[in-house]
Each structure stands twice: as C-alpha cells, then as structure tokens.
C-alpha cells in the first residue's frame, strides 16, 4: 500500500481558536487504498484537522496537497468537488428534508435542470439497501433516530465518486450489526483504491479495519504507525501520553445478587407504559442501586422507552409508580421533581445549549429544579462545576467558554455533569459514552458503578453490549419497539444470549445479524 504516492498530505498544520491551540504543527498523510485511523483523546484535535483539511476552517499555518498539487479548499463544496467526501462528527444533515434528498442534495440527477425526483428516490433506496436499510426515503429525515441519520450521512458520503473518504466517528451510535455493514463497505471501497480517513474511539474497530494509525495528543502530532506494529496498549499510551494504569478494565463487579437488590418497593415501577407508533406497552421495575441495561438493535425503541419514562414524550397509557405511590411523570419537569434525570443521546439537538457556557450548561438542570427565584450561589456553582470538570477531565478546563466551542466528546461530558450534579435517584443514560475517548469512558463506567453502589438507580442504554453487560444488574431487551425480555445479569448472560433473544422471532430481514 505505502509504496504508492500519498493522495493527500498535510504538512505543518497549525490552527488556533481564541484561547485554544487546537492544532500545532501537525503532519498527516493518506495513501490510496488504505484505511487510516486518526486517534486521540477528546479535544485532541481530530475533528479540527478534518475541518481544516476540508476548508471549513482556514489554517493558520501549513500546507495541504492533493495528488501532489497544493490545494486550499474554501469550504466543503470545493473539497467535495475535488473528490474529498466527508461525514463530519455529529450528524450534519438537514432534518427537514427527506431522506432521499439528504443523500443527493447538491448532486441530484437532473433533466434539463429539473430534479428527477423519481430517480432520486430510486437511487436512494438502492444505496440504503447497500447499507441494509429499508427506509421510507420520502419521509423527513427528522422522523428517524439519530443512528439512522448517521447511516444516511454515511450513505451520502459513499455515493460520491470520491478519492478520499473521511469518516469522523461514524460508528459512535451504531450497533454491532450496522458497524459490520459499514466495515464491509469500507473494505470494498478501500479495495477500489479509495483512501479512507477514519476516526473512532473504539479500539477494537481500529484493529479490525485500519491499516495505519496517526495519533494526536493535545493538538500535536505523536506519530504515524502501521496498525500491525502498534499494540493496543501502546496506542492508548500514545494517546493519553502516560503509562497505562487507569485502564485496568473495571472488574465485572456488577454481577451481584440481584435478588438482594430487588427486595422492597421498587424505586420506579412502570406498568404497561406505551405510546402508539413508538413503543408497545411495557412493564419495568427499577430498584434503588440497580443498573438496568437496555439492549436492542438500532431503532428497536430504546430511546423511546427512556423518553417515555422521563416524560419527554406523552405516553398513551400505563402507570408509573415512584416509591410505590403512583406518580405522574408527564413532563420532564415533573420527572426531575421525582428525582429522575435523563441524558439524551442527541446531544446537539436535545442536550447542549450552544451559546451558554460550560458552567451554565452544567448547572442548568439543577437550576431549573430549584426554580429561577433561587439562583445557585456563584461559589457553589464554581465548586460543583470545578469538581466535575476535573472528575470528567473536561477540556478546555475553563468553565466560561461557550459549550459550542468544545469538542464533541467534551460536550458529552458536560451533559453528563449536568445530570450528575442533580443527584437524581434514577438516572437514565442514553448512549452516555458515545464519542467519548477510552480514558473517559472507563471513568464514566466507574462512575456508574460508584453511583449505583451509593444507591442511585441507573437505566443504561448503549450500543455496546459489552458495556451494558459489564455494568448492568439486569438487562431489558428490546426488539421492534417491544420489550421482549428482562434478563438477570448472572453468569449465564453474555452477548450471544442477548443477541439470540433479540433474534428469536425477529423478522426475516434481520436474521443475518
């Protein structure tokens, strides 16, 4: 592979934002027919490098060549035209447009200048079929879950006749099946000679697909390595820049005595809560100190369960009892009053308030619960915020920067902090580790265990089954927006059994997963 000339080189790239040096003298090469992983902690500068490359940001210094010729894109439009196709971190599509249009906008098939809508839909369907997706392509994209949107974004990128394909954390919200699908296509494209730049925080995925790895740390280049020559441990050390001890995986402590936990009145008891078109009525009990995992495939309705429980969506019927007394959790505010917290998977649309500072974003839920008349004293705010900025290693560590300026992973940590300071009795975490680097991910997992040891109940949703298994006392399995099973996390439970539960009785089209 490396004997050919690089299709893309970036030399001496530097980029500063007010108060932050996001990139400093970074070099990067990309060869045709390789999958190149760009690795680094949250805020290391991966996304910035990609944005500099595609002209979203101007460089302060440095040069870029494509096929040996110097280029300087003025924006994604030019980059795309030159054959650099990008899926940026966070879904960057227009939710008001249809699925098909999101895939083809900007390069619709036309006849005499008129968009051929039939053709657009037909091609979109075909393209999605390649990704194993069967969607109504003329429905607005916004009616689909974030994971689907992510897949649509990928579909858009791979359709472009590109020489360079850039994927910034495309897998963060995908489940194993979808990831496998994506990798199959990536390999296919690689074999066609396309150069792929791939960002992820999943080490397994890197070793599964990447040919080479470039590591960034704190905006600086650490090095470029063939995957084969860099063992996992070495990679992590290069990323975090110190010896690895934090990473002693958390022992599978969670397999404690479920029966003991489940004594007494449950903290939350849900009976036949449901919403037409979203989730079939389900029952669920969660006890104090219990971690309930929610497993299921993409779009199986996990998020919908969480939203119903939190009152973010109105349920059609069913009851929720908190501490044994039936309560109404019809709005988020009511749920929060009852001690429920909900960290949404869609951090951009439902999580952060971009203009507000890190501090304000963190105290938002707590302040809302106290009412506006009782502001949290500034000293207390600073204490709380400092504590979690440190605990979660939020960078930059300045609580007064607008949260919009943080890297994706750091934004996620801010959201987590928002809910942690409210000290809820039941915390619903929907993909909390999405887009979070390996160090922080372990931190969060540790945190969840600590919290549950301290008596907090957690509803934990994650696309990573291992993570769910490691943390949960009990796993509820979703299939087709139905809660099909609740399995105690004893020694008998593993990923395979969950997959089987999901698969048994599922529809034909899903059998190959």
């Amino acid at each position: 592979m490396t004997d050919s000339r690089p299709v893309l080189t970036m030399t001496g790239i530097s980029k500063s934002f007010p108060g932050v040096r996001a990139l400093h003298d970074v070099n990067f090469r990309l060869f045709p027919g390789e999958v190149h992983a760009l690795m680094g902690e949250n805020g290391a500068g991966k996304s910035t490098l990609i944005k500099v490359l595609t002209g979203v940001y101007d460089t302060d210094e440095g040069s870029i060549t494509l096929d040996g010729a110097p280029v300087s894109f003025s924006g994604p439009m030019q980059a795309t035209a030159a054959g650099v196709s990008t899926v940026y971190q966070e879904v960057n599509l227009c939710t008001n447009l249809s699925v098909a249009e999101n895939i083809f906008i900007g390069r619709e098939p036309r006849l005499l200048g008129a968009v051929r809508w039939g053709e657009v839909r037909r091609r979109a369907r075909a393209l999605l079929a390649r990704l194993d997706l069967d969607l109504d392509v003329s429905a607005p994209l916004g009616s689909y879950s974030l994971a689907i949107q992510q897949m649509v974004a990928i579909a858009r990128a791979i359709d472009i006749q590109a020489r360079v394909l850039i994927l910034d954390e495309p897998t963060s919200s995908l489940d194993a099946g979808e990831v496998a699908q994506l990798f199959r296509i990536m390999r296919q494209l690689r074999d066609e000679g396309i150069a792929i730049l791939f960002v992820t925080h999943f080490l397994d995925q890197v070793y599964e697909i990447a040919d080479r790895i470039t590591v960034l740390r704190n905006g600086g280049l650490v090095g470029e390595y063939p995957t084969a020559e860099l063992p996992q441990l070495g990679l992590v050390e290069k990323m975090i820049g110190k010896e690895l001890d934090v990473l002693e995986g958390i022992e599978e402590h969670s397999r404690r005595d479920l029966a003991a936990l489940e004594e007494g009145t449950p903290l939350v008891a849900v009976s036949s809560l449901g919403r037409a078109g979203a989730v079939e009525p389900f029952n669920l009990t969660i006890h104090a100190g219990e971690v309930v995992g929610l497993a299921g495939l993409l779009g199986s309705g996990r998020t919908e369960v969480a939203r119903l429980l939190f009152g973010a969506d109105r349920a059609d019927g069913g009851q929720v009892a908190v501490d044994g007394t039936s309560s109404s959790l019809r709005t988020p505010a009511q749920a929060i009053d009852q001690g429920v917290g909900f960290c949404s998977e869609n951090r951009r649309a439902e999580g952060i308030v971009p203009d507000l500072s890190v501090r304000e974003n963190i105290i938002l839920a707590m302040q809302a619960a106290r009412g506006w008349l009782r502001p949290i004293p500034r000293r207390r705010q600073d204490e709380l915020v400092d504590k979690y900025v440190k605990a979660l290693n939020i960078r930059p560590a300045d609580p007064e920067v607008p949260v919009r300026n943080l890297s994706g992973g750091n934004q996620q940590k801010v959201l987590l902090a928002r809910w942690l300071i409210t000290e809820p009795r039941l915390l619903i975490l929907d993909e909390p580790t999405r887009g979070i680097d390996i160090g922080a991910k372990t931190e969060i997992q540790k945190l969840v265990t600590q919290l549950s040891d301290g008596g907090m109940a957690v509803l934990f949703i994650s696309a990573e089954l291992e993570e769910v298994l490691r943390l949960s006392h009990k796993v509820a399995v979703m299939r087709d927006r139905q809660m099909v099973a609740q399995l105690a996390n004893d020694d008998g439970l593993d990923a395979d059994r969950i997959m089987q539960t999901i698969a048994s009785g599922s529809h034909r089209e899903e059998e190959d997963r």
Partner: protein
Amino acid sequence: MNDTMGRYRTMVGHRLFWPAAVLVVMLAANTVYRPGFLSVELKDGHLYGTPIDILRLSAPLILVALGMTVVISTGGIDLSVGSMCAISGAIACMYISQQPDQNSLPVVLTALAMALGVALVLGAWNGVLVAVIGIQPIIATLILMVAGRGLAQLITEGQIITINSEPYRAIGLGHVLTLPLAILIALAAALLVGAFTRRTALGMIIESVGGNAEASRLAGIRSGRVIFLAYVLSAVCAAVAGFMMTANVSSADGNAAGLWVELDAILAVVIGGTSLAGGRFFLSGTILGALIIQTLTTTVYAMNISPQTSLLFKAVVVIAVCLIQAPAFRARFTRRRSSAPPPSTVTDSPKEQVPA
C-alpha cells in the same frame, strides 16, 4: 507597553465598544456642526440641553427595547409594543380627562393602574398565543399590532385626548434632582429588569430557552412559563413607555403614539448585540442601541437635514453602524493592515458559524 496593548485589546474586544464608538462619533459630529450641542445648563433647577433631550426622548424607547430584548432572547419577537404604548396612553389619558380634578394624585395613580392592568391582560394574551397555542410569535403579536391600534382609537374615539394633569405630565417632563423623571424611570426599569434576570437565574433560563428550547425542556425548564412571562414583561414595559410618550405632550393620540416603535426597539436590541435568533441577551447593549437611535433622530433635527433626505441619511448611518459592528467586516480591515492579526478579534467567528 504590552500591558497597555493588552488593555486596549480587551477594550476593543468588548461587546459594547463598537456601539459606544458609534455613539461617540455621532455626538462628536454634532458638536463639530454645532459647538453648543453638548452643552448642558441649569435652568430653574433643571438640567437643560440637547444631551438631556436625547436621554429623555430615548427613555420610552429604552423601556420598550428592554422588554423586547427579553422576548427576542426567548427566540420570539413582539410586534405589538407600539399598539401597547398607544392603548396604555389612551386609557390613562381618557380616564384622567374624565375626572373633575385632573391634578389629583389618586386619579393619576388609578389611571396608571388601570392601564397597566390592561397591558398585563394584553401581554398575557400574546403570551398565551405564543407559549400555549404555539402560534409563531411574529404572527401572534401581529394580531395585536393591528387590532391594538384600533382599540386605542376606539378608546379615544379617534380624537386626540388632551389632558391637563400635572402629576401625569411629570412622568414625561417632571424632574427629580435636576434630572428628567423619564430618564430615572427608564434607568430604574433597566436596573429592575437587570436585577430580575441577572440576580436570579431567570436570565440564564431565558437564554437557555432561546438557545435550545428542546434541550431546555429536557433539562426540566418549563419554557412555556418563561416565554409567557417575557411577553407580559414586554407589554408592561411598553405600557410605561406609553405613559411617557403621552405625558410628554399631555395628550393621547391613538394613531401616532408609538408608531413604528417596534422597529426601533428591535433595531436597538440588535445593535446591542442580541441575536434575533434568540439566546444570549445584553441589556446594556440594548440601552446603548436605543441611545444611538435617538441620537440619530435628534441629529437629523439638529443638523436640519431636509425631510426628503433624512431617510437616506438614516440609512447610511444604520448601514455604517452594522458594518462597524460586524466582526467579519472589521476582520477584513484588520487583516489587511497587520500581517499577524490578534487572534482575539480576527478568528472570532469561524467560518462554520452561519447565523440562522
């Protein structure tokens, strides 16, 4: 050297620097045109002079713009403020004019209370339309903008109601400690709104609702209430502004009072740095914006720019103001002048941020 340079930079980087600079330039231009422009003298224990006029005349606009700032910050807009001024003024003046003793303080207070009561109701009406029924703010408030002026004229029966009430007149023209009362009222309102929003958590909550309504809802904010409150506040501010406008000329003109004030108020808010898309708001910027607008109007009079060209003149100034205000515009010049631009001003707005 380095220190002064740094201080200069923080000053220039400050949000209010450029609007303030514009104001200063306008005042300077006036002073050059007429050296006595800035002079203030003490007449009968009152301060008297053009700067005082500007302050006094901008008081109603400041009030309206304060309420507007909060509404805009929630992601809304209130077009009905002009009508609200007319209605409140009309009610107050109408009531006073019907009383045998127009100079009695209780009469005036009753009038104010009645008008404020109606303003509360109308503000609540707007609030319900936007926050509860979910009508787009511009249309929801357009209803009252149209109908409200009709209401005001209905109250006055299309006449200009002239009153002869010293206490009421004082709202617009009275003096306390040599300063016009109107200025003090506006100042008090600004401090009150400032305290209410910045001393409590209300400000942050408003900004949060305006910045991302769905995220705020999921964080437990009852955004409906916040939005509702914003419209009520705006109505009350407009009502007080209506008192000032009518007191200033001791008469209520249902047609002319507060005409186009909504545009001026929005302009003031935007000049002050608050985005029409909602989110962060800046009360001090709004006040500065209102002063700029009033100074501009006064300049037209003071320089006796002919009515035929005064609109052109205003347009040119407004264009200049917004250009100078825009970091992207300044960046072009900074970049041209110095090869190594200070990062604080130049990269302020990465290309990615496209305003809605």
